[in-house]
């Protein structure tokens, strides 16, 4: 088993597609939100929308940690490393995200030492290898990534690495989902739950969505068969009038989550009272900051950070697209002023932002690919 190809088998995909068509009530229009940016990307990459009947609509949610990062935070992070003695380290995803005066790659072009890392532990390694410089790791991600940052800080402490700090932008998924459900514009029938976040937090945190909001949640994997099976499971629940949390991604997601990961997070992080989410406004208890005990590795506590607040241009409708109220192509700037090359908002830069996914994979062309494909 390779755990990838098995979940892309064409015959099984066809079966799942048929089952979806069988279960979908032709008199209903289903609006299912997939919360995680990884799901957005997968749906586009595998062309899964082509396999769904027209009355099953997938709505992209705000689970893209790059997309919800306010521009001011990028400016702040880059201001810390403006000195030649500093190295700015971040995942590839951050490199083209525009701050007010440019993206990290553009800062690199102007002489800042900017490095792409695959892992926070690679950033720590950079610090060990460059003792005369300070390495600041610009951390992003939901609960999937936060435990790894936490373990890296613990390791920095254990090894006494002092020329290393983290600029922490980790956010949590539940408050984002709550903000969506609280939004008056939204009408949703169910959720495809974020499979990898759930490897850390488990499936219990979604129970209130089922119990109090009466909407089914199926925690899903990321292969085509995973996503399609999750939709089957959601439609089944909706047909039966049920609303519960189910785990489609059993091979990887433990119902109770990963205790070691949760412990590491609790040890190193605490919740910020509030945090600004691009497009969603201020949400309380929705983001992580490094605890005072680890202040030495917290860039915000060690260095002066301007704390700039940058508002998005009024014409950009990132917020509504993030909440799923608007489709990317409905934003006035989409494809015109705002393209992957000239992104106005982060939704167009991040590879899992719905605007970038839509633009790169499916364009707003009137002729649909499905029509053009006659296999």
């Amino acid at each position, binding site marked *: 088993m390779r755990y990838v190809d098995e979940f892309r088998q064409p015959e099984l995909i066809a079966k799942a597609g048929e089952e979806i068509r069988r279960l979908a009530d032709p008199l209903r229009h289903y609006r299912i939100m997939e919360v995680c940016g990884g799901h957005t990307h997968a749906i586009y990459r*595998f062309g899964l929308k082509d396999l769904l009947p027209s009355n099953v609509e997938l709505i992209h949610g705000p689970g893209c940690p790059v997309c919800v990062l306010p521009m001011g935070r990028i400016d702040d992070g880059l201001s810390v490393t403006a000195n030649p003695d500093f190295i700015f380290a971040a995942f590839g995803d951050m490199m083209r995200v525009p701050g007010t005066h440019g993206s990290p790659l553009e800062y*690199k072009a102007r002489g800042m030492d900017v490095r792409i*890392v695959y892992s926070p532990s690679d950033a720590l390694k950079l610090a060990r290898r460059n003792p005369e410089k300070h390495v600041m790791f610009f951390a992003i991600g939901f609960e999937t990534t936060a435990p790894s940052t936490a373990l890296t800080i613990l390791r920095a402490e254990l090894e006494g690495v002092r020329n290393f700090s983290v600029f922490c932008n980790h956010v949590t998924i539940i408050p984002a989902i709550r903000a969506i459900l609280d939004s008056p514009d939204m009408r949703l029938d169910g959720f495809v739950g974020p499979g990898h976040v759930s490897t850390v937090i488990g499936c219990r945190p979604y129970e209130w969505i089922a119990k109090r909001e009466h909407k089914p949640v199926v925690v899903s994997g990321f292969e085509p068969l995973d996503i399609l099976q999750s939709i089957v499971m959601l439609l089944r629940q909706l047909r039966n009038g049920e609303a519960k949390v189910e785990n489609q991604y059993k091979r990887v997601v433990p119902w109770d989550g990963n205790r070691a990961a949760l412990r590491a997070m609790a040890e190193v992080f605490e919740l910020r009272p509030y945090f600004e989410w691009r497009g969603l406004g201020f949400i309380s208890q929705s983001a992580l900051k490094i605890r005072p005990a680890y202040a030495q590795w917290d860039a915000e506590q060690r260095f002066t950070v301007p704390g700039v607040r940058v508002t998005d241009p009024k014409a950009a409708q990132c917020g509504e697209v993030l909440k799923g109220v608007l489709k990317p192509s409905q934003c006035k700037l989409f494809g015109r002023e705002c393209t*992957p090359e000239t992104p106005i908002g982060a939704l167009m830069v991040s590879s899992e932002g719905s605007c970038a996914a839509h633009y790169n994979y499916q364009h707003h062309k009137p*002729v649909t*690919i499905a029509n*053009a494909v006659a*296999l």
Partner: protein
Amino acid sequence: MATPAGKIKFREPQIEMAHGAGGIASRRLVEGLFAPLLFGSATGPLGDAAHIQLNGTRIAVTTDSFVVKPLRFPGSSIGELAINGTVNDLAVSGARAEALVVTYVLEAGLPTDVLEAEVRAMAGAAERAGVRIAGGDTKVVEHGKADNMYITTTGIGRLIPGVSVLADSVRPGDKVLLSGPIGDHGVTILLARGELDMEAEIQSDSRSVLPLIEDLVKAAGAGVRWMRDPTRGGVATSLNELARDCGLAIALFEQAIPVRDAVRGACELLGLDPLHIANEGQFLAVIAPEQADIALQALHATPGGSEARIIGEVREQPPASVFVTTSYGGARLVDMLVGDPLPRIC
């Protein structure tokens, strides 16, 4: 006759890395700044090499510069790339490389044995490619100004009889042929930089594709409509350029695109698409449907061509686009590369 002053359409205030990545930005720079000022009114689709008339003979000429870090990497080095790259550019324009001239920009402080190794590599590659190095030039710049060395090669060649490569001649129904597995070179370079801490049995595919193209042309001759070597920007960029130039659609079949397992693994880990990754030993050809099978057989029969595949076909709709269909009926558009492919974790 006075040439009217070219009006440039390039509006960006400074040059960024993206302008050299081979994707959309590069194209904007060439079409928006260089073309209007240098190529005057004679701007058709920009190909890999230029064909000029010299006393009744048509000659192909091309130039390419090689900027690579690290200089040496599994399977090849900058010197070899410099020879094969130019030989290949000529080959895909339908020409057999006859002679190359080389310029070096060397960084002060470069160890002589490093330079010697590359020059030896170039000599070896030139001999294997059957091309003469006719001369060159050298400049040395201050330490820190040249990343060890930059090499430029300019090549001239004679057109191979019976072949005419033109985007305009591409028709719906034509088949898209790829000479072998993609992604090897780009992934090799990425891993060789050492920053990602990954190891794999992958090496650069740098080689001269001239023998393959000569056999292809011998077999399919007039059926060869268009060719390109998918270097920076990958197959996606080359095919998008074709789609834009001919206004048609290119439909690729995901299952048919050859990618080595290790390349696939590295791309999965890093969140990269093999279609956007540079290759240095492959070419794309669009062949008339009647000759497609013969063309494929000819490549299979040539040393180094056993992994050639028909990976797609040309269609009418949607215009000027490239898309990939999966074996289960899903489809997605494949766009030109924006900047260099970056690893992602999200």
